[in-house]
């Protein structure tokens, strides 16, 4: 053992003390660091911990399907992926955007704008930057999880509609909830939710829409999910079964192919809507993902207004269909003797002005009684009738038979139509009613307007003897409303006899005749613009008459009413009649167990000029110029084009 340590100096006590103090100072410094983090900035780090550890990804609940009356799927959903951008890290976001834009092939300006517009939202709320991810997008996201931990995929359910605009207006479409809807929902809706925007999607949104679930996932440092904490299951939306019959709807859609108009099929006994078609129609699949602005603009600017649900929103002059209201008013009010006859020379003069019958220049109706007036749709008879009833009675009966007010169908944005009256001109135009206007209204021209649904309900209700079931699209609806307006048995019998004659006694809609079926109805051709204007601009197609036909079967207590509107179709009986006939035939064929193919194939085309006598396809018109309708009572452009004559 060596003794090198024996001669040691004494200890460097001062320096050892300095080391001790250094250790103490070091500890105080470290503790002050903890004090700052844990006491002073604790709240800040608490939030960071809360936000950073657990990522909440919504689980989107699928919307309920829409089914037809037999359970066939009309609208369903399919799974798809959206790309979510996580925004909790602004620095990372700025760095990553160009790469993301390139990887997902979005324009960088577009992306920047999306991020910018989401700035008011809380940072931890991700935004959808690409609603429909392609396979390449998914590969990009998966392979760049580590270096771009900003992207996440969200499984969503896209709405799928029968293509080509099938039932598009009735079904409506879905879209991102608007701010106002969020505010009005009492917290039930959140920004970004997909809700029904129009039609049944909107009407039954609460049923169709499920409750989104939430997956709280643990993500590690590179944004990869390493575990799940809790998962709140999504509650899928409930299906909605409709009164729509797919086969009849298909027949109606087919009938309107390439035309502008609407077909409404009702069962007046219970108010069920069996079909509701409106053309032209947008294809809601095109905005199931996201409506492009230019596309939306195009749809809105289209002069054919494809977004208008003509069945409930087209407010047009009903033309001669209105004569059923006149006929009912005549018999019910007893202001005019039933035995009234009029001689029709093709024209007549009222209040110093000449009014023509629709056969003017070709033939005359000769002596016309009540029945013949309906069957032949003689304008002269109804001009006289209108003059004798007066506008008050006409408007009373028109209102009570359902014109000028909503039918109350379970669809949003139904229009009222208009029943003019002395009170109305007084209120709106601050002038007196001109007696000449009554003459126009008597044949469904002038200021009177109605929707196809209103006319279907009216004709059905009259044939039911004054029972008006509220039209509805929801099958098994409870407490279907009804309105009663007592029409005497005698009146019902005589008016329906007239409508039977329209089809079966060589009337204006002979083309609608069906063997073995008591097909009845009333045609109409309504002028779109005034006669004077038409002369000025020349006889362009744009100003062709609107064709109406409201057919039903059987003659009394009908089980099916079909209202057909073909804009610019010119001749109600000739154009609308066969359409209604085919749908009624389809209905009975199906009821009697025949294959649906039989009628859908037949339905395809209409040869308008084939075998129809010219005399039958011309329609009445009146020559009185109606008052100019001011802007504030014009609900839409389409209506403006056609409501006045």
């Amino acid at each position: 053992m060596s003794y090198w340590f024996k001669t040691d100096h004494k200890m460097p006590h001062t320096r050892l003390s300095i080391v001790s103090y250094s250790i103490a100072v070091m500890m105080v410094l470290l503790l002050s660091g903890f004090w700052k983090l844990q006491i002073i900035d604790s709240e800040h780090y608490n939030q960071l911990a809360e936000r950073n550890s657990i990522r909440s990804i919504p689980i989107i609940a699928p919307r309920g399907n829409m089914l037809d009356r037999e359970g066939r799927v009309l609208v369903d959903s399919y799974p798809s992926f959206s790309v979510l951008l996580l925004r909790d890290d602004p620095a990372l976001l700025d760095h990553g955007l160009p790469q993301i834009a390139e990887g997902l092939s979005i324009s960088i300006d577009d992306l920047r704008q999306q991020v910018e517009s989401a700035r008011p939202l809380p940072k931890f709320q991700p935004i959808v930057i690409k609603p429909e991810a392609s396979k390449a997008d998914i590969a990009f996201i998966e392979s760049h999880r580590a270096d771009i931990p900003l992207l996440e995929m969200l499984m969503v359910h896209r709405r799928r509609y029968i293509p080509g605009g099938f039932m598009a207006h009735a079904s409506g479409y879905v879209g991102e909830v608007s701010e106002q809807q969020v505010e009005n929902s009492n917290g039930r809706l959140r920004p970004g939710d997909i809700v029904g925007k129009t039609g049944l999607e909107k009407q039954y949104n609460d049923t169709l829409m499920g409750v989104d679930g939430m997956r709280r996932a643990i993500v590690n440092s590179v944004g990869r999910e390493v575990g799940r904490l809790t998962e709140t299951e999504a509650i899928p939306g409930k299906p909605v079964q409709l009164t729509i019959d797919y086969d009849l709807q298909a027949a109606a859609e087919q009938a309107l192919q390439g035309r502008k108009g609407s077909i409404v099929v009702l069962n007046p006994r219970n108010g069920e809507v069996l079909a509701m078609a409106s053309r032209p129609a947008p294809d809601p699949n095109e905005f199931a993902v996201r409506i492009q602005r230019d596309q939306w603009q195009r749809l809105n600017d289209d002069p054919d207004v494809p977004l208008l649900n003509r069945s409930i929103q087209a407010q047009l002059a009903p033309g001669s269909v209105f004569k059923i209201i006149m006929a009912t008013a005549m018999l019910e009010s007893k202001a005019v003797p039933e035995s009234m006859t009029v001689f029709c020379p093709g024209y007549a003069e009222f209040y110093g002005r000449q009014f023509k019958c629709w056969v003017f220049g070709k033939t005359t109706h000769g002596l016309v009684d009540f029945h013949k007036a309906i069957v032949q749709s003689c304008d002269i008879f109804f001009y006289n009738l209108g003059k004798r009833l007066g506008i008050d009675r006409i408007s009373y009966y028109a209102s009570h038979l359902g014109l000028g007010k909503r039918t109350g169908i379970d669809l949003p944005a139904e229009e009222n139509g208009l029943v003019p009256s002395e009170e109305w001109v007084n209120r709106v135009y601050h002038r007196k009613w001109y007696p000449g206007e009554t003459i126009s209204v008597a044949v469904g021209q002038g200021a009177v307007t109605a929707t196809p649904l209103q006319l279907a309900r009216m004709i059905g209700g009259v044939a039911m003897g004054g029972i008006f079931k509220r039209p509805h699209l929801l099958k098994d609806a409870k407490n279907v409303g009804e309105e009663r307006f007592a029409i005497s048995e005698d009146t019902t019998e005589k008016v329906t006899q007239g409508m039977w004659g329209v089809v079966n006694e060589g009337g204006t809609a002979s083309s609608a005749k069906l063997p073995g079926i008591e097909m009845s109805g009333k045609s109409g051709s309504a002028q779109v613009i005034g006669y004077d204007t038409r002369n000025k601009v020349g006889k362009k197609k744009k100003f062709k008459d609107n064709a109406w036909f409201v057919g039903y079967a059987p003659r009394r207590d009908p089980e099916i009413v079909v209202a057909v509107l073909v804009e610019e179709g010119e001749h109600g009986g000739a154009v609308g009649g066969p359409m209604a006939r085919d749908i009624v035939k389809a209905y009975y064929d199906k009821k009697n167990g025949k294959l649906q193919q039989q009628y859908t194939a037949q339905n395809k085309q209409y040869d308008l000029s084939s075998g129809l006598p010219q005399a039958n396809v011309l329609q009445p018109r009146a020559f009185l110029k109606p008052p100019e309708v001011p802007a504030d009572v014009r609900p839409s452009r389409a209506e403006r084009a056609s409501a006045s004559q």
Partner: protein
Amino acid sequence: MRDSQGVREYDWWLLALVFTICGIGILEIYSATHASHFAGMHTRQIWWVVVGTILLFAFSRFNYHTILDQAPILYLVGVLALGSVLMVGHTRFGAKRWIPVLGQFLQVSELVKLIIIIVLARFFSDVRTDRLSLADLIKAGVLCGLPLGLILLQPDLGTAMVLLPMLVVGVFLAGIEWKHVLAVVLLALMMLPVGWHVLKPYQKERITTFLHPEDDPKGSGYQILQSKIAVGSGGFRGKGLGNGSQNQLGFVPVRYSDFILAALAEEFGFAGVFTTLVLYMALLLRLVQNAQRAKDRAGMFLVMGVAAALSFHVLVNVAMVIGYMPVTGIPLPLMSYGGSATLFVFLSLGLVMNVRIRRFVN
């Protein structure tokens, strides 16, 4: 001749502090890992502590004078071991640090730390004056520099750095002159750019990240950020054992080892951290006190070498946890999980006991 005194002369207060800190460490290792695939880690740590304790008592039985006598041979062994690690060592995490010993992978550099403490103690006690000459300063620097360089080659910047405080505290206690301090500092500043080029890319990255953490929030800056979030969100009272989300969800990086204090801070809050750091302070001050009471300068230098190493570990690790220093991979002594590190601490405390139980013996 009786070489030491009885069991009463062991520093039982020091041991009490050591086992309390180990207990806190094991509790937190349990909390941090029981729900993960690391489960069972705390039991292994208990075994390391038990083995360490046995080694501590065993090591304290050899007279430290005898150990100091063998300093040159130990130094040779240490340098050779470091050299062999570089040649045949087991590569883990991109660095050659481990050689297989007794079926476990021991980190040779931990053992080398202990050897350097002994070698420096021997060297400084040989100086005999209260003044450190320039020649002796340079000798000490070279003595320390060789193994330091070898450890840097592994590369293990963290462990290499631990050698420096031993040297610094040693030369300070040995009586370095102020002009030499100035010279060394100037030299170090001039070497800094050179040193930067020697650093491995990941080491450079850690330093740049430390200086600009916002550049890399998901890389190593992310680790510090997560650590700070864990600490900060703990608040004063903490979230409770097993309730720290940062810890339990794995956001705290290596939460059972280097960042164990972050896990503790989250679950036990400032109160827990305060208690722990006060325990560490008591431990370190107790070491200095033992140095003051050592029988000779050799014993004093041994104890202070240990104190310097442990203080540096605590300082660097704790400062890293709260984002005051870059990530270096230096564990928290006695608390962090790890065999080599735990054994090093217990062996070095064995040295301290060795000196203590012989303070009254001639």
